[in-house]
């Protein structure tokens, strides 16, 4: 079975691992200890101490904190209870005019703003763009991911989470 150093996983996650090495990792059998090393790499990256339980985006994590299990931006901003849609506590900017769409699509044909808009969900603290939805006007905001966190740790990792308050 494959195994890689934490440094290799760090470079892989950062997108800085040279391509030939990345290609070999893609072609090889997967490494069983990946999740533990991955979490460790991500924990080193954030400035806060609360343990990361599960990444749910590029810079978005479920972590254990004094306020319970929350979805948190890498900058430390909390989006609240991880079971609720974090997007509802974000700030949003909507592109629903030709002018605002043209800012992202300078050369191409544009969608019809009467049929479709782009919704940008930002962290209100660091302005990181966490997610983009392309949706018809009036379409409900999507709750992208509701992990079975307890089941994952208990049944798949074999290390049940501690009870929360």
């Amino acid at each position, binding site marked *: 079975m494959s195994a890689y150093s934490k440094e290799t996983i760090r470079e892989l996650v950062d997108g800085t691992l040279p*391509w030939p090495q990345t290609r070999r990792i893609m072609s090889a059998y997967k490494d069983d200890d990946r999740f533990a090393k991955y979490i460790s790499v991500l924990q080193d990256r954030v400035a806060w101490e609360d343990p990361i339980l599960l990444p749910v985006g590029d810079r978005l994590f479920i972590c254990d904190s004094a306020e319970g299990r929350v979805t948190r931006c890498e900058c430390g901003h909390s989006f609240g209870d991880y079971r609720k849609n974090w997007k509802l506590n974000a700030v949003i900017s909507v592109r629903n005019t030709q002018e605002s769409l043209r800012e992202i699509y300078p050369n191409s044909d544009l969608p019809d703003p009467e*049929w479709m808009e782009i919704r940008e969900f930002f962290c209100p603290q660091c302005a990181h763009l966490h997610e983009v939805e392309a949706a018809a006007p009036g379409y409900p905001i999507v709750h992208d991911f509701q992990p079975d966190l307890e089941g994952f740790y208990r049944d798949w990792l074999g290390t049940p989470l501690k009870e929360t308050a």
Partner: protein
Amino acid sequence: MLDRTANPLRERLLESERLMEETGCYDGITELTLRRQDPLKFETLHTKLRAYCVSAREMARRISASPGVREVGEMVVAIYTPEGDAIALSNGIMVHVHTMSRFIKWMIKNGYEENPCIRDGDIFANNDAFIGTVQVPDVMDVVPIFYEGTLVGWAGAVCHELEAGGITPGGDVCLAQERFTEGLFVCAEKVGENDEIRRDYVIRCERNLRMPIYWVLDEKAKVAACIDMRESVKQLISEVGLEYWQRLAKEFIEEGRRAQLARTRQLTVPGIYRGHTFYGHVTEGKPGFQPLGPPNWLYNIPIEMEIKSDGKIRMDFDGTQPWGYHSMNCTPAGMDGGMFVTLTQHMNFEGLVNDGAWMATEINIPHGTWTNPDNEMAATATSWALLLPAYGVFQRLLSRGFIARGFVEEAFVGQVNSPMIEMGGTSQYGTQFGMAHFECAAAGSGALAIKDGLDTAYVGWNPESDMGNIEIWEQNMPMVYIGRSIVPNSGGAGKYRGGCAFASTWLINKTEHLRLVTSEHSSRVFDNGGLCGGYPAPTCEKHHAVRGSDIFEKAAKGEALAHTPGTDPLVSDFERRYKGEQVFEEGPYITKPHKSGDIFSHAYNGGGGFGDVLERDPVKTAWDVENGFLTREAAEQVFGIILKDDAEGYPLADIDATVARRAEMRKARLARAIPVSEWIAREATRVKKQDFALEVTRMYRSAMQLSPRFTREFKDFWGLDADYAFAGEK
């Protein structure tokens, strides 16, 4: 266990399904006995079967006359159990491994053993999607494998035909609004006996197709592949024994099922994943479209995926749109196939894949929707138009799981539509012709979570993507290339950008009658998406033609020509450079024939982006600008990357200026954005007033008519009264 030699096939099939139901294991195989007894022999035999398939496909490609099969590999072959479950398969258009399985099962369930009988040397063909394929040009041939008088399996092959004899030339017949205009149907027919294709079948093909040489020679190629696989399997059985083979084939599939479950548990996280995409299509005012339904459509494609504790993946299309009088409907076979081809390339990339992987999944395709029409007269000629966006969502949902689990190298923003151009009329040789141009099999891919997407090198339906050689295409059509180039900024923006698309520009040459038709255009809305902050790639581009251009005069004078439409969204290089009638066309290109001297341009699609644009590497961006993948304007405006020129005039990232520009852009983001709660309160007023375009209103009304869940979730989200409903059309 059932006697596998004496009972009719139909009983065997039903027994196999009952055993799966009872034990949860394929055909009641609860123990992989042969694998345990001799794992090396077991793996060796599986590899041998795969080698038979790959070798047969490569041999057949050299028999085919079609550039679709020869150049871009639009073919797949597989070996099946007697009940029609795939044991081993080749590379290629793997979507059809499972659709062929449905075809074989359909014949068994419909009493083909009694009439027309299943005998050694028989050849059966099908291209009816309600029996088992995706669309009419996907013609499949299967032959039974008999060993000493016992049916021991099937060998099957599919080619995508470049011409299907529909109302418009080609195979993706976008003008078809019902089954009756899609082209030549072969509905699970016995088309050959004693290893020979029947002459009357060939005559039918010759008299009903614009370019029968492609179809007929592909038939021969497929039959050759099937016979090759059949003889190899018989040789194998003579070495291992019949009983061993019968158990082995079943164990391979059960092993595939278990491997899929294990892989899901290894790579993902259990839970509920959601996503959606849309498709917007415009045919209003186009010649030939009958007024059978609305001329313009907006389709929503919401998908909920559940990964269960045992590793089973369940996909649910509840909430999507009804089937319609257009060519983009899909059958259950096509939906199965789309899921199969996505799984094989996105999760089961080790090669040991078969129908077992499919058995580790579930799919809910609501009756009456485009995913499962309740009318078998519905047309499916361009079902990829909706399939590809749908399974692009599936790839993004799986990728969210890979990212959560740490396998970031497998996360992939996914597949996109790649509009097809087809043609017919009088060839450059003065003969009748018809052809689908398959360079569309090389779109831009979505980005990965660790790098940019593939430029001009990926489509979802065939992971072995290839655009083919210009010279080969030029041999087969009365057009010559005057340009084939990367479309700058055609990948979705992000920390990692989507792969870029390309555009081709042709000069119509040596013909006075060339019909050009295109399909799979979502011009009004994005039919792809980004992930984790990445933007979707641009919508499908409009067509641009110049009728009666002065290109020959310009060439005679040695003047510079325009080889692409250029990057100015307001005035194209064609308008600047060529005289003649400038034509712009949105959506499918249905128009009067072209003739020598006309110019036509067709663009393919790029993939969605990954991550926040303001994290994109400035140095890599300078390289992108230098090589034509991004424009300098986009680098600064979209990515916040300031470029300067080096001593030789090449773009060079100005890191300090970029840092300052990005700080400004972050401030601007927060200045412009509002709390989501505030936005919801404002939008709820609009929803209550139903202040939407006609097509948007129609989409919501249709979704609510078909789906109580969509209705409930829509009302809950916007805080609407229980009796809220979208008004009917006047």
